[in-house]
């Protein structure tokens, strides 16, 4: 951002309306001394050690970018979760995960508002989001034929739609398996 402003002679009035305290910039030696003192006074050292396994075994929160598809068009960019794009026409391939320098990052509502011409949203249910229920075949057929990019939303917010899971079968519905017979 170009934020350089060359000020006029009016500056002294603004800068020194209240006489400020001026000090010399801190040196490494001064900070090293503070560092030693701070280590001795560290209140966290008085607490017991963390319980459980080493934290290095815990997977850190992955980057947002790696879990998102990036939509860019006409100087604007917005993120949606992976699996939120249900239909991706090849004509818009250059607008997906192809960030253009100078584009302004905006939130989804603003991006969608300006790009309704080529983006359509499909409101999905919570069960569909979790992969417990399929999206109606007719609707799937319709958006697959659409020339627009289709983004799944839940109450207006883009949402990932998980793959359809096989329903858990009850024990009584389990197919009976035939045990191979063995000769005595």
């Amino acid at each position: 951002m170009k934020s350089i402003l060359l000020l006029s002679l009016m500056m002294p009035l603004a800068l020194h309306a209240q006489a400020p305290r001026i000090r010399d910039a801190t040196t490494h030696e001064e900070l090293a001394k503070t560092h030693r003192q701070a280590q001795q006074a560290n209140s966290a050292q008085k607490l017991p050690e963390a319980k459980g396994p080493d934290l290095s075994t815990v997977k850190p929160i992955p980057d947002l970018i790696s879990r998102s598809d990036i939509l860019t068009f006409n100087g604007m960019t917005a993120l949606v979760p992976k699996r939120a794009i249900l239909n991706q026409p090849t004509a818009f391939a250059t607008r997906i995960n192809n960030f253009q320098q100078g584009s302004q990052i905006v939130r989804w509502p603003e991006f969608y508002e300006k790009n309704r011409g080529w983006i359509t949203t499909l409101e999905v249910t919570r069960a569909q989001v979790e992969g417990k229920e399929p999206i109606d075949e007719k609707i799937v057929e319709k958006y697959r034929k659409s020339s627009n990019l289709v983004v799944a939303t839940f109450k207006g917010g883009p949402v990932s739609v998980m793959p359809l899971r096989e329903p858990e079968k009850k024990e009584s519905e389990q197919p009976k398996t035939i045990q191979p017979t063995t000769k005595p």
Partner: protein
Amino acid sequence: MKASPIRLLGFALLATAPVQAQTYTNLIRQVQFPGGSEYDMPVENNYDPNDPTRSLMPIDPGGARFELWTMRASGATLTNILLSSTYVATYMPVATVAITSEDQTSELPRTRADRPFRVMVNVIGLLSGATVPDASKSVNFYHHVQSYGEGGVGTNIDRTQAVQLSGNSLTTVDDHPFNYAIHSVPSADLTKARGEERFSVYSLADVDSGAPISELAGQTIQIWPVADGAIAGLTQGQNIKFRLPQLTLTLNDLYPSSTTYVQAYKGPAVLGTVGTVVPGSALVLNESVPQNRILMVDNYDEAVSEDGQWTFELLTSTPFGIDRLGHVTFNINRSLDFRGSSTTIE
């Protein structure tokens, strides 16, 4: 299940605060467990930050993690920084981590390498009793640091490489304040440290329910270096006649939110003296990362109003006060002495 009863006031405040110099955009991502679906809350730009909101996506039985991210474009590269995260689930302790520094100009907590900061950890929902699982009795508080390297600004660093400095157990429902007089980012010259420190609270794994170790809350503070600079074009003790020479100001690691300038006053250098700003020497920054600049200053004779000994000081004003980066004292004598005699001839 009803809409998630988590108040997202803190997140919403951060998400809707005026973006710093239009360089950051904040987003809230909700991750559902155990399914793994992800949801972006449709936060409008005109959202009232004083009005607490609820997530529109109900929380799954395994809980949900709310992540507050800030995004920035640096050239053709997108950068994302996790500002804060909160994990919410049934019977799980709830924690918050809030970092405060003297710099209130940025929604992303930040400070300078020579300044203190404070971390406030609040834990609620801890239980006690012989039959209570360990995961409900305590949480772990961790402190990680990571250097951005020389000249680095934290773009696309691998945060899995952060170094754990400490890990402690918190067993009481209370506010736990931690004061840090100085940063812990590894650096040969402590004034030139660039990096970040992350403070996080994790739950313990619950053997009974199978709940894994989860980050309940966490926040990161950025540490930026102390600026340095020099005035060239004038030397200490130099005698000047007539016009003042062109000055070259070399400015390194200027704090992202700062005003840097040269002030002039009559007499020798005395720290604390308030003078007048040399015209054309002031530089105002409202950035997200430290800046280096070289400024040429010319035609500033009006700053030196009379003959005698003068001092120029290079100052930088930041949220932490005013620091002197350099100074030079010189003598100026603009007066002309006319020596001669006059005679008359009849």
